[in-house]
């Protein structure tokens, strides 16, 4: 199978995924207890006011008609208006997505920078004190709640030493880099621990592989063995893990976004759920589905590049 046809087949797989997500999210949102009209109007509204709201939102229509409108609107690019924010869902998501995207990529970058070299150092010094120290430090990152690390960093590096601002996002690219450094680091301390553990065991596995021993027997210099044979092969499973992490982080940085006051989609999703903001929950979930599909597609592409066997199979 050529790279192009592999890409096409993967692209086609996204379509059913997307359709299934649409059905599931439509049904799941409506299965939540609580009524968006009540959530929207607060407790003070009378029954008549609630009925007016339900009519305005089309919630008095039969379920299949609501689904029909939903599908039609999605394919015409109209995700409706947010009940909570009284603004078009598309506009709200476009406003909030960059902060989450920035934070995610920043955190992944940090994770790779932190975890990559240390995983190699740990693997090459397997079971001696260096390996044990590196693993222990990362274990702390893995076992400490994100909100606690976040608050510690904010308290000492931002509020006490004033090296960084206490939360926020800033307006320019430089300000984003500055404001998001602590939240990205907070997230990275967790993800880098996972990546480090995975990369370390992959490296250990690959170092012992026959083709590496063969390369060494051929007399190849150590840096060529590590760079060409060990790194490339050890990265295959780590790339998968990174792809999954990015997918999770895009929608799952809720705690970090809240503590650091980052106006991202994680926090927006929580607000939307609490407000039973059906259009916004649906819009966000579809956006996440598309983004995660794209990220997984890219992950597959990179894997296929790293491991030609995948393209053939």
């Amino acid at each position, binding site marked *: 199978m050529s790279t192009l046809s592999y890409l096409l087949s993967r692209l086609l797989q996204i379509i059913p995924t997307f359709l299934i997500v649409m059905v599931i999210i439509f049904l799941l949102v409506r299965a*939540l*207890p*609580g*009524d*968006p009209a*009540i*959530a*929207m*109007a*607060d*407790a*003070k*509204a*009378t029954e008549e*006011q609630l009925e007016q709201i339900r009519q305005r939102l089309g919630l008095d229509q039969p379920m299949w008609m609501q689904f029909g409108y939903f599908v039609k609107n999605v394919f015409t690019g109209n995700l409706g208006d947010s009940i*909570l*924010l*009284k*603004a078009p869902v598309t506009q*709200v998501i476009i*406003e*909030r997505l960059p902060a989450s995207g920035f934070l995610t990529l920043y955190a992944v970058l940090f994770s790779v920078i932190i975890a990559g070299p240390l995983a190699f150092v740990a693997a090459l010094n397997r079971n001696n004190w260096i390996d044990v120290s590196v693993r222990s430090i990362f274990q702390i990152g893995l076992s400490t709640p994100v909100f606690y690390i976040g*608050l510690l960093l*904010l*308290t000492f590096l*931002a*509020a006490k030493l*004033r090296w960084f*601002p*206490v*939360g*926020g*996002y800033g307006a320019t690219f430089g300000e984003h880099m500055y404001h998001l450094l602590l939240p990205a680091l907070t997230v990275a301390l967790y993800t880098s621990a996972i990546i480090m553990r995975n990369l370390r065991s992959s490296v250990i596995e690959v170092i012992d592989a026959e083709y590496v021993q063969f390369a060494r027997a051929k007399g190849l210099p150590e840096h060529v063995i590590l760079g060409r044979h060990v790194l490339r092969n050890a990265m295959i499973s780590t790339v998968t893990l990174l792809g999954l992490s990015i997918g999770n982080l895009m929608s799952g940085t809720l705690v970090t976004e*809240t*503590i*650091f*006051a980052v*106006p991202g989609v994680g*926090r*927006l999703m929580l607000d939307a*759920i*609490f*407000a*039973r903001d059906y259009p916004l929950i649906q819009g966000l979930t579809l956006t996440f589905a598309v983004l995660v599909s794209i990220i997984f597609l890219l992950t597959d592409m990179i894997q296929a590049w790293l491991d030609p066997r995948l393209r053939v199979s």
Partner: protein
Amino acid sequence: MKKFLMATVAAVAMVSAFPALSAERGGTMTFARYDDSTLIDPIYADRNPDIWMVTNLYDTLLRTGEGGSISGGLASDYSVAADGLSISLTLRDGISFSDGTAIEAKDVVFSLERAANADLGPWAGLLASIDSVSSDGNSITITLRNADPTIVSMLATFNTAIVSADAFAAAAGDTDQEKSSALSVDGFVGSGPFTMKSHQRGTLMQFEANDHYWRQGEDGKALPYIDGINFLVIPDDATRILKLQAGEVDGAEFIPFARVAEMEADASINMELFPSTRIIYSPINTRSERADGSANPLADLKLRQAINYATNKEALVQLVLHGAGKPVTSGLMASTTQLATDNGPLYQYDLEKAKALIAEAGVPAGTEITLTTLAGSADDGIILAALQQMWSEIGIKLKVEQVDGPTRGAKNRSGEFDIHTYGWVNDVNDPAQVAGWLGYYPTRKAVGTGWNNPEFNTLFEASNTEMDPAKRADQYARMQEIYAEAAPLLFMYETPFAVALSQSVKGYVQTPLGNNEFATTWIDR
């Protein structure tokens, strides 16, 4: 009324505590909020982060002035007809909107008709007595369908604030709400002390001083004193406080009560506890049967009274508010509300009385009652743990059910609960709203409790057209007496608004209704 007056006097005193001449002008204040505004429009503001900001951008015809009395706002004076069926107002001379155009009678007619239009905003019901609004030159006449003792207060309330008729006519959009959204930032035209400069949803909202605002400061120049306000949205309590401690913001609202003492001990911070109309209470399902058809023990008045006596409210205040609050003294409203009666703490902790009532009611030991709490709410967790212990003394086994806000709301409406936690802040300067909410069955089944008392309902209806203040006060006193006796609620406590400010910020007020007042705020540089 006295209590309300005292609260208002206290609030005003806080402003006037700073010598008039020392008020400095200029500077921009940065204020950390727990949530962002969505649409700050007098008639569409339906969440507190919107409602509490309205009067910074739009001024009202009348104002709640010193001593709690109603005084002139955009209208220099007003009079109510002897039969109570009409109100005449005179619009102040030479006042303008933020775009420099004159505020005219037509704007008042437009704003009031819009506010009373039940097809538009959620507050139209508060103006249901308005039949028509007409104008002649600078004179405005509001004709009422029936006498309405609340209407004057309503003209000093956010939902009747004045918007520009011309700006709405020119705004993009087909519906009133579309026009309002279009005007909310671009092309903003307001009548309050500030104008909307920019708004990045969920992050930053910027107000700047309205150069055309009519009210004057103590120095004889136009308010506000400050050039503008930057509102940062910081949902996390700890981060808001850190932001203040780091000097990045000048004020932070909703300080958790657990941290009030720490803020008070910080010399760089001025910890303010503004009197509020906020009450925390728990509706009790009083129906004879639960929603599942089983017998409801709480239908028995004696059991409801017993659990009220068995609840140590002082202890709850200490546990939840760390002392920064007090047990309710009127079951029907906060003590700061007009016409609140004060007969001391309601159902003061008395275990013996509680046990006697339980015995009289014949409630068997080990009777199970479910408390529905908000999942993730630290306060609710503390309340539950405390009540479990307190009520075990009278043989009540308290179970817990944790739900989120909308589910709790739905349960309240359908009656699928025994007792659940709840809170309330008045939106208007009159007790009718809270009394209607908590006690008047036709409004919302007496806050979902199902309590339906004909005498209370009749008194409430009569009080809504009673123009004699003394008679109305008597009606309210009796309603509060009936309500306390019937105990359709677990009566709990009232809390202040906790705002931490940098020492350089002076003259900031949060009113008992929650309104954030920045018009008289200044920065001591």
